[in-house]
C-alpha cells in the first residue's frame, strides 16, 4: 500500500518535473484507446480525427481498440495509465453516467477525467417507410390507443437507447414496450422487416437508411441539415436535447496544463473544414465542450441522467 502511494506520488512528481519540456506536446505518437469495437461510431469518429491530428500536430494518433462490457472494461482501466498525455481514451455519455449506477462496473463516473467533448449523435425515433406512422403525432395516438402494442427496438438494457425510450414514454404519457438488441445488424433488420414498430436510436441510423426508413423526431437543439422536415423534441413539447456524446478523457494523474492542451488540440481538430464536412456527412453533430466548461456540462448532464435512471428504476 505504501509502495503504491509512493509510486503515485512519485509519478505525479515526475510528471511535474517534466513540465518545462511539455511546451512541445505532442512530441511522440499519442495513443487513443477506444472502448468499443472497430467500425462503431466511436471508432469512426476517432479515425476521422486521426488524419487531422497528424496534419495539424505532426504526430500520429494511434487508435487502439479495447472493447468490452459496453466500454466499461477500458474505462475502469483509465487511471492505471501514466498521466503523461500520451495515453488518452475516448469517453461516452450517457454510458459513463449510467454504468456506475447499474453497479456491474468497477469505476465511478468521477473516476473519469473528461477533458473535451467533441461530438454527439442525437436520439431519434425511426420507422420503416411502410410504417403507418407518418408523424410523431401518429405514433403518440397509436401508442395511447394500443398501449403496449407499439414496440421500440434499441441497443442494450440500461443503455442510452433504453434511457431515451423511458423519456419518450414519459413525454408521450404511454407505456410502449422496449425491446433490447445486442447488435446493430439485428436491430436494423427487425425494423426493416417490421418485426418491431420503431427504433429508438440515433440520427445516424436514419441517415444510413434514408431510402428505407424515416425519422419522426430527433433530440437535437435545432432541426438537422439533412432532415429539414423532421421536428425536434423541443418543438414537440419536450425538454429533450440528448444523445450519445463522445469526448476524450485522461488518467487522473494528468496535470492541469496537459488537460487544457489536449482540450485545445481537439477544439482545433473540430475547426478543420474538411473534417467538419466528413463528420456532417456521417451524421455527427459537432460540439465544443472545452476543459473549463466540462465540470458544468457534466453536472448538468448527470442530473438529467439521474432523473431518467430513476424512471428506469436504476437509481433511487
Amino acid at each position, binding site marked *: 500500500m505504501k509502495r503504491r502511494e509512493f509510486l503515485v506520488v512519485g509519478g505525479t512528481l515526475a510528471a511535474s518535473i517534466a513540465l518545462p519540456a511539455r511546451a512541445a506536446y505532442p512530441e511522440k505518437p499519442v495513443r487513443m484507446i477506444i472502448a468499443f*469495437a*472497430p*467500425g*462503431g461510431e466511436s*471508432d*469512426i469518429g476517432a*479515425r*476521422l480525427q*486521426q*488524419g487531422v491530428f497528424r496534419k495539424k500536430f505532426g504526430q500520429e494518433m494511434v*487508435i*487502439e*481498440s*479495447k*472493447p*468490452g*462490457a*459496453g466500454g*466499461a*472494461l477500458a474505462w*475502469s482501466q483509465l487511471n492505471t495509465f501514466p498521466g503523461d498525455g500520451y495515453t488518452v481514451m475516448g469517453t461516452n455519455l450517457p454510458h459513463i453516467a449510467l454504468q456506475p449506477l*447499474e453497479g*456491474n*462496473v*468497477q469505476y465511478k463516473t468521477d473516476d473519469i477525467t473528461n477533458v473535451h467533448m467533441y461530438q454527439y449523435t442525437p436520439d431519434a425515433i425511426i420507422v420503416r417507410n411502410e410504417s403507418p406512422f407518418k408523424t410523431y403525432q401518429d405514433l403518440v395516438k397509436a401508442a395511447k390507443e394500443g398501449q*403496449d402494442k407499439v*414496440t421500440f427496438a434499441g441497443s*442494450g*438494457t*440500461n*443503455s442510452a437507447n433504453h434511457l431515451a425510450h423511458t423519456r419518450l414514454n414519459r413525454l408521450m404519457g404511454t407505456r410502449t*414496450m422496449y*425491446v*433490447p*438488441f*445486442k*447488435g*446493430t*445488424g*439485428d436491430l*436494423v*433488420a*427487425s425494423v*426493416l*422487416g417490421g*418485426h*418491431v414498430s420503431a427504433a429508438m436510436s440515433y440520427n445516424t441510423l436514419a*441517415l*444510413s*437508411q*434514408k*431510402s*428505407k426508413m424515416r425519422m419522426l423526431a430527433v433530440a437535437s437543439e435545432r432541426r438537422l441539415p439533412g432532415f429539414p422536415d423532421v421536428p425536434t423534441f423541443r418543438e414537440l413539447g419536450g425538454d429533450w436535447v440528448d444523445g450519445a456524446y463522445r469526448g476524450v478523457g485522461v488518467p487522473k494523474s494528468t496535470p492541469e496544463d496537459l488537460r487544457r492542451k489536449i482540450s485545445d488540440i481537439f477544439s482545433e481538430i473540430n475547426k478543420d473544414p474538411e473534417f467538419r464536412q*466528413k463528420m456532417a*456527412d*456521417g451524421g455527427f453533430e459537432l460540439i465544443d465542450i472545452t476543459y473549463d466548461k466540462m465540470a458544468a456540462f457534466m453536472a448538468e448532464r448527470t442530473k438529467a441522467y439521474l432523473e431518467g435512471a430513476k424512471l428506469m428504476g436504476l437509481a433511487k
Partner: protein
Amino acid sequence: MDSSLLANLQLGFGVALAGTNILYCLIGVMLGTLIGVLPGIGPVATIAMLLPATFVLPPVSALIMLAGIYYGASYGGSTTAILVNLPGEVSSVVTCLDGYQMARQGHAGKALAIAAIGSFFAGTVATILVAAFAPPLAELALKFGPSDYFSLMVLGLIAAVVLAHGSLIKAVAMIVLGLLVGLIGTDVNSGIARYNFGLPELIDGVGIGPIAMGVFGFGEIIRNLEHGQKRDVFVKRVTGLMPTWTDLKMSFWPIVRGTTLGSMLGILPGGGPILGSFSAYTLEKKLAKDPSRFGKGAIEGVAAPESANNAAAQTSFVPLLTLGIPSNPVMALMIGAMIIHGIQPGPQIMTANPELFWGMIASMWVGNLLLVVLNLPMIGMWVKLLTLEYRFLYPAILLFCCIGVYSINNAWMDVLLAAGFGLIGYVFGKLDCEAAPLLLGFVLGPMMEENLRRALLLSRGDPAVFVTRPISATLLVIAALLLVIVLTPSVRKKREETFVEDV
C-alpha cells in the same frame, strides 16, 4: 432485367479489372490467405490495422482490398485446419474433422486441393447469386422474425447431434456444455452479468476465438506431446497431391449442396459461414451411404463445408450492400470503412454508388480466381510444412495462436481462456467427446436465447408464435423430422456401431 444485369456486370468488371483495383484485390486476397493460415489472427484485427493505410486509396480500391482480406481469410483458414487440426478461422472448424484425418492418412494434398476447388466453385456461384438476386434475397432475409430465427437455431442444434459421431449421449452433453458456456456474459433483457465470477473481462461472455483455438488447437498440441515424434509416420507416406477423378466425382454433389446451403445461410445476419459449414457437413453425413466414414477422412467432409463457408462468406455481403446491415463483425468494420471514405452505407448504395456496388461484386469473383491460381501451386509447399520437426512447428503455432487470440480484443484474458480451453480440449479428447458440437452449441445458444426471449416479448408471452408463423413452423417440422430420424432404431444402431469402431 437480364440486359441490365449484363450491363451492371460489365460496369462491375470494368471497375474490378482496372489496373490498380486488380492489384489491391491481389494484395487483399494474399493478405487474407496469410492471416487465414495463421491460426487466430483474424480478418477483424487485420482490417482494423490496415484501415488507416487505406485512407490514401480511392474508396472502391480500399473496399475491394478489405473484402479480399475477408474472403481470403475464410479460404486460407482451411489450410491449417487440414494440416494441423487447427481452425485458422472459426468457420473452418468442421474442416478439421475430416481434413485432418485425410492429412494423417497422407492425403493432405488432396484435401487442400478439394477445399480450393470447392471454394472456387462456391465463390463463383455465390457471386452470380449476389449479382442477380441481391435485392430480393435481402428482402427474403428480412422476413425472418425473432421466432423464425429461434426455430432455425433449434434445427441447427438438432443437426449438431447428427454431426457428432460416436455416443449420442456424449454429443448431447457437449452441446449442452456449449450452451452453458454461451450463457456467460450480460443478459440482454435485464442487463445483469451472468456467470462471470465478478470478472469484468467476462461481462461480454467468452469469445469464440479462444474456445476454438483452445479446444482444437492447444488441445491437439498437448495430445501430440504424448506421441513424441511418431507423427512423422503419417507424413512420410504423402501420396497424390492432386485429387483423382474418383475424388472429384465423389466431391461434386457435396460441393453443389454445400454451396447451396452456404449461400442461403450467409444471407441471414449472424453466424452465416459457421452455420453454413456445420449444416453442410451434417447434410453430407446424412446423405452418405456409409456415414461411418465421416470423421475418418471422408473427402465429402472437406468438400461440402469448405464450399459452404466460402459461399456464405460471399453472400454475407448481401445484407451489407443492399440494406446496410452488418451480418458479422467484419461487415460492421466494412461499414465503418465506407463512412470513413465518405460513402454512406445503406440501401441507397446500389443506386448512389453503382460502381462501388458492382465493382465489389465483380472483384469477389476475380478474387476467388486469384485465390485458386495462387493456392493450388502452393499446396506442395504447405504439405512440406508437415515434415517440419515437431519441436519447431508446434511452438511456432502456439506463439501465433497466442498473438492471434490476443489481437481479437487486445485482451490477455482471452489468451488465458484459450489455454484453459486447451486443457479442457485435451481431456475431452481422452474421453472421446467431440468438440464440434460444443462449439455449435456455444454459437447457437446465445442467439437462440436472444431470439426466444425477443419473440416472447413481442408476442406478450404467447408461445403460439412459433407454430403460427409459417417460416418458424416449417423449420420446427424439419427439426422434428430430423429428430425422428436420429432416434430411429436402425440409425441408432449405426451410430453405436461407429462408436464401437472408434474404441
